[in-house]
Each structure stands twice: as structure tokens, then as C-alpha cells.
């Protein structure tokens, strides 16, 4: 499971990184990178102020 971040919506604020329980996310300059620790829990999706994240099921 993984997530997709729509880079045209994302405002690179890092809020999703701060809530990800597995540490799967990283804010690199102006984009979010996701690694294979993602469990698809959806917490980041819930928190994003702009709604840039989708969980792939």
C-alpha cells in the first residue's frame, strides 16, 4: 500500500511528515517523498490542510 501526493496541490508544509507513524514521508525542498514503510493508514491524508494526498488501495 502506498499514497500519492499531488504535487500540483501540495504546499510543502510538512504536516503529513509530522503525523506519519512509520516515518515513511520526507519533505525534500518542495516535494514529498514516500518510502516503502508506508502502510496506507491514511493519517497523512486526513491531516493535509489542502487535500493533496490520496491513499492507493
Amino acid at each position, binding site marked *: 500500500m502506498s499514497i500519492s501526493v499531488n504535487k500540483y496541490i501540495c*504546499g*510543502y*508544509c*510538512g*504536516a503529513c*511528515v*509530522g*503525523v*506519519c*507513524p512509520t*516515518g515513511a514521508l*520526507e*519533505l*525534500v*525542498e518542495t516535494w514529498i517523498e514516500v518510502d516503502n514503510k508506508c502502510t496506507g493508514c491514511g*493519517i497523512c491524508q*486526513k*491531516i*493535509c*490542510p*489542502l*487535500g493533496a494526498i490520496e491513499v492507493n488501495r
Partner: protein
Amino acid sequence: MKDHYDVIVVGAGPGGSIAAKTAAKEGLDVLMIEKRQEIGDPIRCAEGVGKFHLKQHIEPDPRWICADVKGSCIISPDGTRVEMAEEMSGGEVGYVLERKIFDRALANESALAGAEVMVKTRATDLIIENDTVCGIKLMHLGKMHEVRSKIVIGADGMESKVGRWAGIETAVKPSEMETCAQYLVSNANIDQEFCHFYLGNEIAPAGYVWMFPKGGNKANVGIGILGSKSGEDRAIDLLNDFMEKNMPDAKIIEMVIGGVPVCGTIDRTIANGLMLVGDAARQSDPITGGGIINAMNAGKMAGEIAAKAIRTGDCSTDTLQEYEELWRKTIGKEINNNLIVKETFVNFTDEDLNSLAYSLKDVNFTSMSLLDLLKALFKANKKLLWDLRVIFKDFIKNDIDFKYKAE
């Protein structure tokens, strides 16, 4: 960049810059790295700060001050207003900053004190040997490097990874994070001497809307809602609703988003060779969301204790424990008190909020302190606020204030 420093500071926000400046002034060899190519930009802040506490760290400079604030105005769901203004000489108690310039000025101060600063340089991991942090791995312009140090100070903000790399759990739950959106608007038409706060479960579930004056008829208008309430309606949607209803003539000239940890103090902020400061240590205030001053205060403590540890030759938690104790006694105490207040308030209905505001209609506030506000509220609403009784004796004993104390 050298192979070895006394101290490496990760992140050039207010916490990192003050830590780097303090450590460099103590004569240490300091490297501060920042992953962004421009320090301070984009901002994640409403930019409000108390004068008294700010001045302990830096001389106010008109280049990064946008507005002088003399009071705040809280507006309940039915429009009842509670005004609090400082009536002391001089009048103004807070500033609204230009953080882009402020953060750079602070970084510059650390450079002038002797720290080496690198931008577009991201920490990617820690070097850990024998259960001790001995430096960092970093990426600069696509190349990986290893740099060693006696102490690493993690000042890497809300999205902090430094603590996690050392095994310190810093992830916050959605119910422990305010998710925020803000516009800088022109044609704001608000009273430029007041910070405004709009409460209500419809406009901002478990949060509020703020309007901070930014000078020249501009304002930071933003919203924070508890992450657990975000979903269908996100911070940005609720902000757009608010703007449409309340500020139809305002023109948006900048957009800001971000998250504020409101989890209260975390269990641990040190490891052998490591200290966390500011948002990385979750030191932001659960009520106001303010974190600039706490980050700076913690940065100063960490810089001083780094110097002490390096002088004694022991950078283990035995020595760094002093930092842990120092910040918990001061910053931590206030955060945990305010956490109780936050947890009481997020459960209030709009009717509760209205009646609380109404109960203050005849109170004449002569200060902007949160404590004064809470005391007046408690006096008039003992039943509703009974959970708060524990904090008053603490508050009074420690003389904790709202960071807006006038000199």
C-alpha cells in the same frame, strides 16, 4: 564544510539559529544546516510574538516588524466580543513579524557569532556509534557527505526526523495537531492594533480563526482546526468560507499552510550526543499555537548546555539531562497547563462558548494575559470550568504568563 565540528545544528528556524548563535558565542565550532535554499521561506506562521520575550534574544528591528499590537479581541460564535488591551505606558505588547526576514536575521546573527551556515543542505540520517550520536549524514547539491560532531542539535521543526532517527518517538496523532491554512490579505480593513480570534465549532472545529494585523491595511487571516476534525472540510475550505462571509473585499496576496503540534510535552528530547529544540521537540503552545519564543528559549538552553557538556568532555545524557530538566521546568510547565485548558475548550459547544464570552461582558481587562482571561472566566463559570481549577495554583506559583507580558 569540515569533517568535524563540536556542534551540528539541523534546521535554521528560530530554534536552530539561536542554538547555533549561543554555541558559537561560547567558543564552539558550529555548523548549522538548512535544507531549504532560502532560510525562512515559505513561512508556516501567523507571525505573532510577545515583545518582552523577543527582546531577550534580539534587538527589535523595523525591517522585520510589520505591526505593533496592543491587545486582542476574542469573538464568540454569536458575535459577543471580549477585548483585552494592555493599558500600560507604551501600550504595545506584541509584534507581528515578517518571518522571512526575521529568520534570516537570526541566521545571520549565528553566522556573525562564528557559526558556519549551509543552505540547500539536508540531513538524511544520524551517525550513531555505541548508542551515541556522533554526527550526521547530509546531502548537498545531490552529493552525500558524513560530518561528525560531539553534539547534534535537532531543530528541524514540525517535520522533524532527527529525533526519530535516534529512537525518540515524535510523531503526533491527528488529534494532537492543528492543521492550518492562512492568507496574507490586503484591503483587510481590520483594527491594526488588535489580534482577533473567532471561536466556534462551525467556523473552526476545535480551533479558531485568527486575524493578525500586518501593517498597511494588510493582515494574516488564518484557521487552525484539530486534525481529527479534518476530512470532508479541510482547513483551506473552512478558511475560504470564512473569507467569503467576513472579508469579501480582502485581496489574497500570499498563501500559508502548516501543522502545529498541540500534543503537550513529549517523554524525551535528549539522547547521547543529541538534543531536540523547538517544534522538533514539540514545544509549541497547545492553545496559542505559538512556538517562536519557546523554540528560541530552548535553543538558547541547548546551546549553553552543549558548551558545558563539551567543556566537561561528557556529552552523554548524564550531562544533557540538564537541558531536559531546564526546559520542562519552564517551557514544559506552561505547555502542560495550557494543554489542560485546550482539552477543556475543545469539548465546548457553541452555546458554552457564547455563555463564557457573555459572562465577561462587564469585565474590564487591562492586560492581554491568558492567565487574566482564564481567571476571570473561572470566577464567573466555576462549574463549566471546574477542570481548570488545578492550573490556577500552578499558574500563580510559577508566574507563567501569555508571552505578551509588558516590560
